[in-house]
């Protein structure tokens, strides 16, 4: 492993950079003895080497040159690096398709308590998604986006993190919030935008946010959370906290400029951030073959100098192990890690989408049945004697009841009052906003029949 130049003292960082510059691009101290420190004589030496090697094939092969960033060997063969390797990067998994533990697999052991909570939360997430989706179809909710098929990514990754790790989600990771303690009622409140919502009714459904649970409010723009996460990781590093930043995005999000810049920045800043990509095969109707031509996301990490791994996103145990290991690396070594979780978006992109228009129902059905993350993990915990059919049906009926109740209460709760339209734009509403609020109130007063009755003034 390369010399650890990182130090918590900024001054020694500064000295290290100076040293690096003086060594003319060499990364480790061991190389300095081979080269003269005097730049002028070194330059002459190189010239001399070049001249003397004309016609000598062996010497030409052995030559190296200092370029910014380190030594580069030369080659007389005109060789292009292939656009893809012969084989795709293998995918780390621990449970087979049937939920049986693969022999000789490496994984991080989970306790019964954690495993049962993981499974229960996956079930809860699934039920919550189904009920909210139905509610939207019935017209009770304006919008919803499910996480069906990606429950393992959500819950298992959350389980492997600590509560101080800051989360920068895209919008398909409510499971992380669920794991951390966001209640079904709180989810429902946000979806209905009522006055109990953390966000004070300002965002559309599934755009959750909780300061208390270190889950940053979802911003709908794709991949903008990636640079935010790098900044947060940088902040954690500056404060020397035992925590990292974790950010999620989809295969589609990796095409955005912010993805590339964020990875580059994270590597340069040596920021402790986990980039977790949910490669679920589809970006609304765009399949991955139309999104990028690389071997998925995992190979992109190397381009930025980032350690990467490809994981079976529907294997909760593998997901847990990978994130757990990555987190330790990120914090102790102060480096970013890229995790590509292969999975499938079983649901539609959102309630505004009908995915059967662009993909076969068979494909969806196959992933939902044969590759279902819940059933695989359930098999494993049952094989450990930690779960039973009875507990399953108890859990499901309890959650369903809770969900329906949460929906009912959220629907009935008042919306936030009008002043919330103008507050929090700034820390204190300025003159122009106060004036605008006054105007709105005046208009409502003169035309009460044109305004919704359930918005309190």
């Amino acid at each position, binding site marked *: 492993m390369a010399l650890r130049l990182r130090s918590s003292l900024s001054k020694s960082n500064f000295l290290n950079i100076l040293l690096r510059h003086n060594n003319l691009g060499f990364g480790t101290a061991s190389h300095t003895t081979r080269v003269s420190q005097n730049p002028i004589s070194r330059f002459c030496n190189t010239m001399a080497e070049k001249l003397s090697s004309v016609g000598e094939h062996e010497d030409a092969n052995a030559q190296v040159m200092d370029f910014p960033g380190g030594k580069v060997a030369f080659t007389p063969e005109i060789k292009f690096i292939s656009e893809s390797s012969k084989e795709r990067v293998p995918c780390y998994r621990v449970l087979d398709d049937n939920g049986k533990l693969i022999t000789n697999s490496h994984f991080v052991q989970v306790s019964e308590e954690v495993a049962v909570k993981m499974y229960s939360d996956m079930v809860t997430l699934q039920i919550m998604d189904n009920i909210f989706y139905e509610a939207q179809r019935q017209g009770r909710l304006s919008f919803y986006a499910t996480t069906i098929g990606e429950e393992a990514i959500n819950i298992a990754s959350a389980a492997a993190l600590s509560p101080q790790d800051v989360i920068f989600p895209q919008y398909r990771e409510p499971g992380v919030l669920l794991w951390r303690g966001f209640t079904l009622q709180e989810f429902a409140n946000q979806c209905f935008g009522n006055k109990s919502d953390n966000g004070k009714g300002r965002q559309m459904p599934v755009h959750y946010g909780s300061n208390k649970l270190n889950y940053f409010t979802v911003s709908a723009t794709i991949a903008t959370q990636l640079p*935010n996460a790098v900044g947060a990781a940088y902040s954690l590093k*500056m404060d020397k906290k035992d925590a990292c930043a974790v950010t999620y995005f989809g295969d589609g999000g990796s095409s955005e*400029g912010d993805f590339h810049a964020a990875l580059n*920045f994270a590597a340069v800043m040596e920021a402790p951030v986990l980039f977790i990509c949910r490669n679920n095969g589809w970006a609304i109707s765009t399949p991955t073959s139309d999104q990028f031509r690389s071997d998925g996301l995992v190979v992109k990490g190397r381009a930025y100098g980032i350690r990467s791994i490809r994981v079976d996103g529907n294997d909760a145990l593998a997901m847990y192990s990978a994130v757990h290991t990555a987190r330790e690396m990120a914090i102790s070594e102060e480096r970013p890690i890229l995790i590509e979780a292969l999975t499938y978006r079983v649901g539609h992109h959102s309630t505004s989408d009908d995915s059967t228009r662009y993909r076969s129902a068979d494909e969806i059905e196959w992933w939902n049945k044969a590759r279902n993350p819940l059933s695989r993990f359930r098999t494993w915990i049952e094989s450990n004697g930690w779960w039973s059919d009875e507990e399953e049906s108890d859990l499901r009926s309890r959650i369903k009841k809770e969900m329906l109740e949460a929906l009912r209460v959220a629907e009935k709760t008042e919306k936030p009052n009008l002043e919330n339209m103008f507050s929090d734009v700034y*820390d*204190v509403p300025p003159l122009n906003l106060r004036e605008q609020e006054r105007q709105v109130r005046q208009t409502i007063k003169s035309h009460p029949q044109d305004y919704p009755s359930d918005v309190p003034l």
Partner: protein
Amino acid sequence: MSSIIHGAGAATALSTFNPVDSKKLTNLSVRSQRYIVAGSEASKKKSFGSALTVRHSQKLIPNAVATKEADTSTSTGHELLLFEALQEGLEEEMDRDANVCVMGEDVGHYGGSYKVTKGLADKFGDLRVLDTPICENAFTGMAIGAAMTGLRPVIEGMNMGFLLLAFNQISNNCGMLHYTSGGQFTIPVVIRGPGGVGRQLGAEHSQRLESYFQSIPGIQMVACSTPYNAKGLMKAAIRSENPVILFEHVLLYNLKEKIPDEDYICNLEEAEMVRPGEHITILTYSRMRYHVMQAAKTLVNKGYDPEVIDIRSLKPFDLHTIGNSVKKTHRVLIVEECMRTGGIGASLTAAINENFHDYLDAPVMCLSSQDVPTPYAGTLEEWTVVQPAQIVTAVEQLCQ
């Protein structure tokens, strides 16, 4: 951010702004008091007729430029250039609060393209003065994320025009997240950099971004124009809980002025009274302030008494100061460097017309740059920027 009505801050105000009387002291402490005294003498004997003759009985303020009179009553200040004032403000805030950090291209050991961050990396270390790769959207996004977790980053755009690449982060995240998160997360960032038309920097390096950013809800915009207000605004912006965009001008970095030794900040939402007058209100900001003051010299010699206000706060406008001035003079001329269409002047014209229509004796006139990319040729470039001669003509026209 305090409300504008109670806005005037004394020179040493820190986080709270003391409400003062309606005379509305500016932040120029002793110097301003002299102005107010002179102004009020003049107003007592003012004739309220429409004649715009100069009253020779009062002490006329011949100085066109904000005073350089000897400040013997204050402690001896120190003289420095505008970029040094910015640096001083930044350094003092970084000393005061360990969460303040700087991010941008070449801000570290290079000291910044305009030397505003010179010496800071040596003093505070690489972690607090961060050199970033070239991606404005990414380091702006990074600063936003860092701000949400407790840091107070100052983002430097090497040239304001480059921040167009950061528009997504500024508009969608910086301006919005405090609101959409229900107030859970604050983003106390400062985004600063040099902009405006320079000396043959080419079209891409002569952008005036204030016109593009002015609609974004959730951000504040201020423009500095003197070493005094540069330092004061920098400090106030860093201390503000809202995201603030601080517009500097490429050609003003070497302005020299004596500023107080003691700690002071300038109110972010307040305009600066540069020269009180009776005949016409001239609203301006940034570099155009100097063109206006040059024109004012000529105007004074011709017998006019212009009131020059440096609006400083581009979002929101200080309609209190502006309004009081309009009510006094009844004529408004806006002089700006923005393009005509959709510029700060356009919004200001609308705001004045909406709020002070009854007080106007003439239509609001706005002098701006033309709607063209800034040409490179020196002569052409000069003609895209409003020149003092045009200002004089405009005032004469308005005061007929």
